[in-house]
């Protein structure tokens, strides 16, 4: 029984993947290989604040990390606020090495196989007359990345989403951003690179409130939503699963997870689930404010704005038909994760809690922690004295930066363990 259902689940999933691939291939008319990360790969995020700010949320990195749970892929975030394709924001008092050289050095030190590049937002303020310079810079940067043997993935800038500036200014600036988006898209197709358009889908969102802190910087919710755009831009399937159990006829239908049924009874239905991918826990609902992540073990906020939930669509859903009237709880590994009436179960209940959500949260913490340690290493405070031209004063303390390797490595080991989905015990039991 259990084997059949999982086989069906797998088949459906596989078909879905193939179909979605075929679908997107037809539309894009490119000869791109499917996006795939491999054991030992190093992924680098390069760009302006769009990339840098993910260090605070870890969503993009989480989304990729959990896609290849069995492959050892590591990530380095080199995003830098205010940056452009020439690395302008990486300037220090010392003229050497100079911001561009420093950017390239940082790239080389990170030793990437894949580089996600997100530029254009800072440049867009230069308008049309800045486009040729931008194109030249982006091509030069991609050449450089090619030369170190890495593959580039290009991201568009975001539209500006703020009402504080006049609507005329907002539209004018968004036109510029659109021009830069097209320029990036053109370069991608000329060079046969993968391009992810973040601009268009966000522009067409009806409700953009609650995605940014100031119209240009995404907040946690914004990054949560962004991961869905990036995943679909990479043609990765959705990570939701659904389990349908018909108690009357014993039929089981599953999608997106490995499921084995242990017991089917009105008072207690027991099954084991292993997610294909860990779920993507939604952030707490906030407007402008970034609230610190809740401490581990605390329940997550379930009130994701519907339009976003629909877009992200990464839910877990359990449907049980044939239950007798009454109230039933879902216990995951012995802890209550949901509660609903027989009628609600028959319609399907969306699950936001359970061991895999907790594991996912823990993983996100480790990613954030790893990124902090890396930040202290690659962009250290007091750079002037530790690596810069006043090294002769504090150069002896440079070793401290090296010591951070140890901390980063330890965290990456923990990440490697946490990214693998576990088999969890699910029980739907009648509440007496």
């Amino acid at each position, binding site marked *: 029984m259990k084997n059949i259902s999982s086989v069906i689940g797998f088949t459906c999933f596989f078909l879905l993947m193939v179909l979605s691939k075929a679908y997107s291939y037809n539309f894009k008319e490119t000869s791109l290989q499917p996006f795939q990360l491999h054991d030992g790969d190093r992924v680098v995020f390069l760009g302006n604040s769009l990339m840098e700010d993910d260090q605070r949320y870890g969503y993009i990195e989480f989304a990729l990390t959990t896609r290849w749970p069995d492959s050892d892929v590591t990530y380095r975030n080199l995003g830098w606020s205010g940056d452009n394709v020439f690395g302008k924001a990486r300037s220090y*008092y010392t003229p050497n090495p100079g911001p561009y050289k420093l950017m390239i050095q940082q790239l080389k030190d990170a030793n990437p196989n894949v580089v996600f590049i997100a530029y254009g937002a800072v440049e867009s303020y230069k308008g049309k007359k800045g486009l040729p310079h931008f194109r030249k810079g982006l091509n030069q940067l991609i050449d450089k990345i090619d030369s170190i043997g890495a593959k580039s993935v290009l991201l568009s800038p975001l539209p500006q989403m703020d009402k504080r500036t006049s609507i005329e200014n907002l539209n004018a600036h968004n036109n510029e951003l659109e021009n830069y988006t097209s320029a990036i898209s053109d370069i991608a197709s000329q060079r046969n690179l993968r391009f992810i358009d973040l601009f268009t889908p966000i522009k067409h969102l009806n409700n953009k409130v609650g995605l940014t802190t100031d119209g240009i910087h995404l907040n946690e919710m914004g990054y949560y939503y962004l991961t869905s755009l990036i995943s679909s831009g990479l043609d990765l399937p959705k990570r939701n699963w659904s389990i349908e159990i018909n108690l009357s006829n014993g039929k089981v239908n599953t999608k997106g997870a490995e499921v084995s049924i242990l017991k089917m009874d009105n008072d207690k239905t027991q099954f084991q689930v292993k997610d294909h991918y860990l779920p993507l826990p939604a952030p707490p609902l906030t407007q402008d404010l970034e609230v610190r992540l809740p401490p581990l073990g605390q329940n997550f906020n379930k009130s994701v704005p519907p339009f976003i939930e629909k877009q992200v669509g990464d839910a877990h859903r359990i449907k049980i038909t044939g239950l007798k009237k009454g109230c039933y709880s879902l216990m995951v590994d012995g802890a209550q994760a949901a509660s609903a009436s027989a009628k609600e179960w028959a319609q399907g209940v969306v699950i936001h809690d359970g061991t895999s959500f907790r594991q996912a949260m823990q993983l996100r913490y480790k990613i954030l922690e790893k990124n902090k340690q890396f930040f202290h290493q690659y*962009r250290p*405070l007091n750079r002037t004295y530790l690596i810069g031209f006043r090294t002769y004063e504090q150069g002896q303390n440079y070793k401290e930066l090296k010591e951070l390797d140890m901390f980063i490595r330890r965290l990456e080991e923990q990440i490697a363990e946490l990214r693998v989905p576990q088999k969890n015990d699910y029980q739907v039991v009648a509440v007496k």
Partner: protein
Amino acid sequence: MGKMNLEKLKFAGFKGLFHRMSRTVWYFFKQFGIKSTAINLFVILFIILFNSLVWAQGNLKDIPNPDPQNELEHMHIEDGFKINLFASDPMVVKPIQMNWDAQGRLWVVSSTIYPHLKPGDEPHDKIYVLEDTNGDGTADKSTIFADGLLTPTGILPGDGGVYVANATEILFLKDTDGDGKADVRRRVLNGFGTGDVHHLIHTFRWGPAGKLYFNQSIYIYSHIETPFGPKDLEGGGVWQYDPQTLRLNIFAKGLINPWGHRFGRWGQSFLTDGAGREGINYAFPGATFTSWAGSEKIIHGLNPGQPKESGLEVVSGRHLPKKWQGNLITNDFRANRINRFVLTEQGSGYTSKQADDILWSDDVAFRPVDVSVGPDGALYVLDWYNPIIQHGEVDFRDPRRDHQHGRIWRITAKDEPLVNPPKLVGASTNELLDALKLPEKWSRDQAKRLLKERGAEKIMPKLKKWVKNLDENDPDYEHNLLEALWVTQSVHVVDKPLLTSVLNADNHNARAAAVRVLSSWYDKIDGARELLANAAKDKAPRVRLEAVNGLRKYHSADAAKIALSVLDQPMDNFLDFSLWKTVRELEPYWLKKLKENPNYLGDSNKKAYALKSVNKQEAVSMLLQLYVKGQVPDKYRNDVLSSVARSGGVSELNTLLDLVFNDAKYQEKYLNTLDQAFQQQGMKPDNDIDRINNLVSSDKNAIKISAIRLIGDWKLVKYRQRIIALARNSDEDIQKAALSALSSLGDDQSKKAIMTMAQKNNSSQLRVLAIKELVSINLRNAASSTVDLLKDDIGESEISDLFATFISQKNGIQVLADDLGNNKIPKDMADIGLREVQRKLPSHRREDDDVKALINALKDSGGEFPPERMSQQLSSDQINRLELQIKAGADPVKGEKVFRKLSCMNCHALGGAGGHIGPDLSSIGANAPTDYIITSVLQPSADIKDGYELNRVVKNDGSVLMGYPVSETESTVVMENTNGDKLTIPKSQIDQQNVVPGSLMPPGLTSSLTRDEFVNLIGYLSKLGEPGDFRVSKTRYIRNWMTLAGDDDMTAIINNNGLKSIAGDNDNLQWNSVYSEVSGKLPLDELPVIHLNSGNFSIISFKINVLSRGIVDLNFNNAKGIRAWNGQESLKVNPNGIEATLNKGMHTISLAVNRDSFDSNSILIQLGEPENNPAQTRLVLDN
């Protein structure tokens, strides 16, 4: 006897030791009523005994006792005041900045992580909130509002929470559930640089109209993305942010480490700089100050040569003395003291004078870094408490760094009632509005914040009514109106009637503030431009200044035209800067218009001003046409000529060449400009340029030399033979010019001529000059000629010169070393060579291969380094022993003589006078531990102060310049070398420019000293800035002098032309810089004596800058036998000095001191204080 010895001992550098060790003994005896002489005797014995004990502890360090009571006992406070401990560790630890909230709670950011997070550690810095709940003047409650921060350096409560600087970001933290701890954390801005933790964004203050101001320092390069585009600031400056509109702007630029900013009663900005040397800085929108980032024009601080200061407060309120109102209080944290400055309005800015210190301490850990008048009217001082303040120079992990203490002190006036602060939180809007009338700025500012937070809708109707009901007879009526105007601005309501009434105020301060508000509404008010035009004609210069700043925002020609109307009234430095900036920024608009209509900008004065402010050829062309017609005011002549040199094209240079022949009066200036144009742009005229040859026959040497130089610049090879002949002339200056011209001609025959002149059978003088040219033409040939020359007998100074030439040429050392390796030279020549290596090469070069090769080659010829008398390589034990010897027995008076003998002041200033190549040493002793001073002198490159980063410029011709960048324009870089010369280098000639590790201070500088001399020197340095005889007094003594060389030439010139020939500009006289001692005295025995027929004289001169015409008082310690001139005009000398009426401007005062009748051994001249003088004057510290 006891007393005398004690004094001597104290003098001898014992003071710190004495204080710490004797205090316990002293109190012990005091209890038994034993007389002080007896105690003194005992103390001496005790010290002698204890001293041997100290010697036994080789690594004892001076870590002060951290007990706050101990710190308190070391404080010396101005009469009439008292100080108490408000809070100390553990209630507050390592405080960095503080600000008050409306409830009267003190918010403090703290960093125990500073200077650097340990690897793997979680950031754990905190925000403390301190409260004095029972009003007894000490904090009794301390709450940790937030934790987990990374070296936070700024804090400001407001908008229901608190803004915090947290490394790359500004956070807004808020407590939503009332438990006193932040539970919401929002990132407000991100992208601030972190290259240097002691420069991170800091000094958070609310501006008068609700904007958030904060500063960053020189190593911080920030790139912020805002909804209005990216904002970049690379270097020091002041940011301005509106948290409501999200607009971020740069308010002012520059300064090295500006850790102080406050707004005056009328919204004026004042800044202090913890690493600059100009005291109080007056700032306004667009102001640009000293900074290595460079600007063609900058504004200077108001107290040149004053200590470096951190934190700032403007005194207001009823508790502190009336005479202090409006004074500025800031911290000389290096010297452990709190300073007060008195401001006086001067033109569109201010003059500032240092008053008596409020407090000083001889506890080196007392580090006042922020200062603030509290809700009770008392003065609160934030004490970072640390014996170590060097950020980069002392190891981050040095155990002497304090990570656990911190204090907040409270200074009150004795017998003066405290202020009862108004209850603002929960007050009605009307009560808040009434608080705007209070004399305490604390209360007004907090009320304004609360009004702003209530929002426009709630407050505007009440505010309008309140304004209407204001009493027009109240002396503060106009200030009350202004406060209301600021409130409307803070809630983004444009209230034109209110603005108009303040624009029309009688008080010019109110008008100036209103013009700034108007400028921020320039696009929101009908007729704003006309209002600014009126303001530009205001009778008060500061109102005009604000108008000129405001006009910068209009992108139009008309705005420039209006701004230029300020030229109809007197100008000053601030106005000149502001107008220059406005005109320059608006150039794209007015220059077009001016081409269509030559009279567009008004009279020729305005037109010339505008044209000389921009670097564009078409502007220069118009400017020069105006000049030729005689329509440019004389005072702009030099500006016109430097514009031509910088941006003129061929046709302008043709015009200039015509002027050379048509306007004899300024012939020399025109010739120099032509040379400059070639140097800076490689540009030359093309119209009949051969006529320059006629001037080679000029009987004036200067003209002749210029002409020779231009023949070279312009490559007029047909005159080669004539130039070759001139190279053999007897006059060295002409020889030099001719050789340089040959080198510029650059053709083979000219090169050959130089080579020939570098060879035997020429005079050694010619050979040396020729070799110096040859190094950039043919280095190998130059090297072999040099080695030949060294085998002959030539003068010592010429040899030094030659070595210096090779040292400053790219590859020069290597090539010379190669040649010397194959050829032996006489030992005495090799000795001189090694001496030059020791003197001229910065320490970091000694380990390089080429230098090692040169040293070996010279040693092969038998050369030896001059014997080192004072060992320059000391182990840390040896340094410790030396330190103890210094503390026990150094004689700082003798040390000062050594300091002067070594000419340290050519590079290091004291009280602002002296060279600026190295750091000002005025407070080095109070600031730095003795071992640090020893190491800095022995190994100058080990520790470099911020702003003293050595630059290495390699020019296209291979020559290398080492120096410090002073300023930068579009086309040139100005560098200062060790001689203090400012060299302008065209960017087109620069091949490479790097910051290099190391110092210009040569190592081995002290190797010729005996150990005693060295001990005395360090003893002197370690006394500098400490209370006593070695602290630069705030009295305005003349410190920067010129003196006439005592050689035969000078004697002959003066004998021939009379003593008065020394006065005024006489090009034939050779003046050298000399500087006063710390005390201000200029020792006579260091001055050259000129033996004239009429007696023996020393000739000295100095400059003073008169800001407004009036009587200037110069007080002499002794005026016997002194004659004086102002320019060429003779001055009357009274027994106690000079009293003279002087016009506005720079004056050179020359003195002839008759050494036969003058009977003091030094001369001390004090410039009278401004309040006693109708004239306002400023000391001139730069030559």
